[in-house]
């Protein structure tokens, strides 16, 4: 790795590390809290009957289809289907805008961009910093599950492959969403606008995915949402083949990040 790239990664990481630590440990704390609550929920009398009385659409929309039979299935509905997505959605929008848009638009990246740094190297190095941060956040979540289970559900065994798939697919999904934000950050010369438009697009995508599970006549909406490629309940029940969606997500992420580089190369910078 060239010295300038190493320096750019160090510069980006310095501004991003606090976000990674707070979101990573925040997500970890949620996992611990949920698994601490798990025995009282899973073994509560009448919980199965309660679930059976709920409308099928609500169960589908909230992702409880995997049931509460084991901690991972429980986490898909209580964490991976909702909290995990919201935490990483905010993390992605805030993180990518901070790394890619704020510096060039507000001028504080002037000292770096006036250095021997091509614009391509700038976007890719900051993108790499984001990916490292996303990976570490996901890693903390992944490690927190067996750790919490060792404390509160030691008799339960965890399927390592399933756990890695859940988090690996999450990582790919958010690489794509980060690409959308990167594209906006590279194109707009106002980081607040990039933040607003980016957050709106991601929330719309999420809402489309959520709404598609509410009624059969809304099922078509899932085809408009990238979130439909990440189905934690289907992964846990073994109903989703992940290779094609994974390849598709990698391809789309590559295209979006490539587009961000292309746009950033062409815009005027007021530095």
């Amino acid at each position, binding site marked *: 790795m060239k010295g300038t790239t*190493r320096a750019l990664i160090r510069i980006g990481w*310095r501004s991003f590390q606090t976000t990674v630590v707070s979101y990573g440990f925040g997500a970890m704390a949620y996992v611990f809290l949920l698994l601490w609550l798990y025995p009282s929920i899973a073994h509560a009398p009448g919980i199965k009957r309660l679930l059976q009385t709920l409308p099928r659409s609500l169960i589908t929309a909230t992702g409880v289809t995997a049931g509460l039979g084991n901690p991972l299935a429980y986490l898909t509905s209580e964490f991976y289907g909702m909290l995990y997505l919201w935490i990483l959605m905010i993390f992605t929008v805030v993180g990518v805008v901070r790394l890619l848009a704020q510096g060039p638009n507000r001028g*504080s990246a*002037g*000292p770096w961009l006036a250095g*021997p*740094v091509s614009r391509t190297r700038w976007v890719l190095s900051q993108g790499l910093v984001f990916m490292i941060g996303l990976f570490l956040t996901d890693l903390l979540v992944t490690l927190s599950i067996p750790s919490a289970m060792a404390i509160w559900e030691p008799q339960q065994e965890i399927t390592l492959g399933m756990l890695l798939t859940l988090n690996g697919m999450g990582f790919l999904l958010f690489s794509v969403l980060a690409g959308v934000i990167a594209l906006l950050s590279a194109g707009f010369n106002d980081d607040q606008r990039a933040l607003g438009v980016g957050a709106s697009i991601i929330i719309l995508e999420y809402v489309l995915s959520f709404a598609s599970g509410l009624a059969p006549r809304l099922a078509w909406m899932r085809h408009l949402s990238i979130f439909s490629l990440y189905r934690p309940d289907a992964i846990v029940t073994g109903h989703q083949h992940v290779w094609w969606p994974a390849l598709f997500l990698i391809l789309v992420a590559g295209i979006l990040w490539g587009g961000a580089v292309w746009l950033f190369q062409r815009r005027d910078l007021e530095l």
Partner: protein
Amino acid sequence: MIEANQLSKRFKSGHGIHGLNFTVAEGEAFGFVGPNGAGKSTTIRCLMGFMRPTQGHASIAGHHCWDDASEIHRMVGYIPGEVILPENLTGHQLLQDIRGLHGVHDRSRLDRLVTRFDLDPGLSIRHMSKGTRQKLAIITALLHDPAVLILDEPTSGLDPLMQQVFIEIMHEEHERGKTVFLSSHIFSEIERICDRVAILRQGAIVALEPIAHLRAEQETLFDVTLSSLPTEGTLGNLRVLEQRGLVLTVAVQGDYTTFFTVLATLPVTHLQQRLQDLETLFQRLYAEEVNSL
């Protein structure tokens, strides 16, 4: 070293720069003067490859400023018109990062600059005053010992002592053969550093002159205080620019004999000499071009 060929950048508002042509030789200090909004910063952003010209092109040492911007940045030290630095860093961290980017291993030059500018790099940038940030920006531009310096209003916010230090350093860099492109709206700064100067007005160059030529055109101004008002005809051919009570401001260019001959006939109580500043000289020489825009 620096060349602009029909360099134009037109904004939606209609403002910008229009067909600028100039060259700056290697080792030359070139001044770029003009009022606010004349297009100085836009020109500099085009030279730095931050803005894509709508027409024409600029190059530095044969490298196209837009296409080879990172190559340009390798050899250029740049101070922007508005210094904005990352607030989450200390001065020391910023300087370390800049050294890392430019691959500067020897820190002796950095240490010398920090000492000369009397900077405390341990301070958080967030807590630095405008002047201290400016000093830090100057050091970041100079620490990799660049062959070309592109400076946009570099002394903005500096106290007079630090302005003097900056000018001394510019003289030293100039003597070491560095090329300097200095933009300013302060004529005295340009006058003290540059070999040639271009005046920019509403995006166009209205004059481009060697400073030495301007100095030859420069008039000496005398404030002559008299004990009584001169009678008609006693002032002869003197060029009186202004009269404030018993004080006359007389402009003299070359012909001192006539000036002192006339002065000998007048009741002079006090005489003070000063040089006409370049700004006034420009107004005198290029009034037509400037006013026609």
